[in-house]
């Protein structure tokens, strides 16, 4: 296990190094001069030169890459051009809100997707199966930004069942101020017993979380169905049938547990994808997460911030991959031999 662990960690480190290099290369392709963007259009040549020196833009590229890596490791992720704050602080503030949203969405996706997958496998080839498969394909085909707009228009602006935008009603900051510990508002509100803000956050969460949940729910249902069908064709399932267990019992009591293994690793991998998909949803619902930050950064061609967001999500994805592989290595010794 130790050798597997070391090898897998080494691979992940290599990928992260590649990710940093690739991000650096893309950010250097920007047509505009970052020094101009920072110093402003009316800066004097001397101010421009100072800005170029400050960002090290006169150095050769490999030196710039090395400086970039050194700064990243030292915790300096650059200064955002549009908020004028350290990118790292911005990310620390925005990421928990995204995590809250995507976390809620993934819970919904698992709670909805797994039972649907089980039902589809149980009635394989019949009407319930066909309709579940078709709806899960619809769920993965829907453009999130459009679904977000549609749900917002119908259920928030139209029927008024849910709030239109934001993370919670900020008027509550005056009547029951929130003590911030984790920056995940729902968690902070829960642990400080701040019920008005908790209720407000939950009602603000419903629509955006449902939109983000569509894609993972669809793939979870498809994966659960496929894994269950494969599992229920194994010898142990024949034995269970011979012992007189019904088809539903074979699926839920015996086949489901081994089938959940690939499904749960799928959820971990869909996590990073959902964060990025959430960007579009956050923009629609004005959710104060990474997506809105990225949208603002894109609008102002803010390369350090865009690089920061890109790096953070890519590293998260590598970490999720690593976690899944290590967990499977612990559970299933055959994985280590690969």
């Amino acid at each position, binding site marked *: 296990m130790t050798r597997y662990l070391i090898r897998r960690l080494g*691979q992940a480190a*290599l*990928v*992260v190094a*590649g*990710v940093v*290099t*690739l*991000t650096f290369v*893309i*950010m250097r*392709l*920007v*047509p505009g001069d970052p020094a101009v963007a920072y110093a402003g259009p009316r800066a004097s040549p001397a101010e421009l030169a100072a800005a170029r020196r400050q960002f090290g833009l006169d150095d050769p590229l490999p030196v710039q890459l090395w400086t970039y890596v050194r700064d990243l490791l030292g915790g300096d992720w650059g200064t955002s051009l549009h908020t004028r704050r350290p990118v790292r602080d911005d990310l620390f503030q925005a990421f928990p809100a995204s995590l809250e949203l995507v976390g809620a969405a993934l819970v919904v996706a698992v709670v909805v997707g797994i039972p649907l997958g089980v039902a589809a496998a149980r009635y*394989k*080839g019949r009407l319930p199966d*066909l309709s579940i*498969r*078709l709806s899960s*394909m*619809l769920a*993965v*085909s829907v*453009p*999130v*930004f*459009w*679904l977000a*707009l*549609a749900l*917002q*228009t119908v259920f928030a*602006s*139209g029927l008024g069942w849910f709030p239109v935008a934001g993370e919670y009603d900020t008027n509550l900051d005056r009547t029951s101020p929130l003590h911030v510990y984790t920056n995940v508002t729902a968690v902070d509100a829960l642990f400080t017993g701040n019920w008005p803000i908790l209720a407000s956050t939950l009602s603000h969460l419903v629509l955006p979380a449902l939109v983000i949940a569509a894609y993972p729910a669809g793939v979870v249902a498809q994966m659960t169905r496929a894994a269950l069908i*494969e599992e229920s*064709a*194994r*010898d142990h399932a*024949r034995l269970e049938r011979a012992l007189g267990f019904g088809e539903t019992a074979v699926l839920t009591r015996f086949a489901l547990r081994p089938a959940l293994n690939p499904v749960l690793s799928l959820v971990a991998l869909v996590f*990073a*994808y959902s964060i*990025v*998909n959430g*960007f*579009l949803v956050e*923009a*629609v619902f004005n959710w104060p997460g990474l997506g809105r930050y*990225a*949208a603002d950064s*894109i609008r102002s*061609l803010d390369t350090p911030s*865009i*690089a920061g*967001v*890109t790096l953070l*999500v*890519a590293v998260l*994805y*590598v970490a999720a*991959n690593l976690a899944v592989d290590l967990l499977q290595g612990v559970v299933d010794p055959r994985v280590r031999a690969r």
Partner: protein
Amino acid sequence: MTAPGGVLPLRRTPLRRLAGVDRLAVAGAVLLALVVLAALLAPWIAPYPDDGGSATHPLEALVPPSGAHWFGTDQVGRDVLSRVLFGARTSLLIAVAVLVISGVAGVVLGVVAGYAGGWVRDVIMRVTDVFLAFPALLLSLALAVVLQPSVTTVIVAIAVTWWPWYARLTASVAASVATRGFVDSARCLGVPAPVIVFRHVLPNSLTPVLVQLSLDGGGVILTAAALSYLGLGAHEPTSEWGLMVQQGQSLFTTDWWVVTFPGLAILLTAFAFNVLGEGLRARLAR
């Protein structure tokens, strides 16, 4: 995925096989054919072909759906149905271009990696790992910000993020093809390595990639629409579904048709690709 131990699962009569899987693939193919037809015939079947481009009719702005304008008109009075039909051209062009570019690049790199093995394989696979660490939309976002907004940018940005999947898939298939007898015999006969790779290994490694390509069309369409929605893709007066949603989004509460129909078009096209791909994959799995 055949049944392990050669045990045939219950209830798999030929009739059900025809009813279950092939019907799905056929349904997807028919849907997709409709979209392709709409794209090809747009200039002839669109009720107001000029509205697909820069024509404006300020006096007819935001007319609700009616006999004259089935899908209503947009902010500058253009027929939404005509623009949705022309938008099929943009979306399919992007999808085909991305799938061809990334498919070719991925298959070539993958087949080389799979056949050569050793350090060549390691280098290619580590590079694909790096690209796979970026969710497709994220990397194309970063690229599209850096390049100028246009349809070409969208194609390049998505293709750059898309090829590693095909490289990885082809590499694993090619590695197993490379161990087969006919490859050994070709090698013993003195056939040069490039000929073995591209004439013998490659054609025998293609099927899974082709299925994956048809399954991915929907993903490309969705990613392209998202980039256009963010203003990083096609611009006025091009008919593009994501762009149409973005331009109409502030009107959703009052003039729902401006946003609803382009969104439905994206949904339908992505759905057609997914249904076709699912049907093909299920068939291949037998």
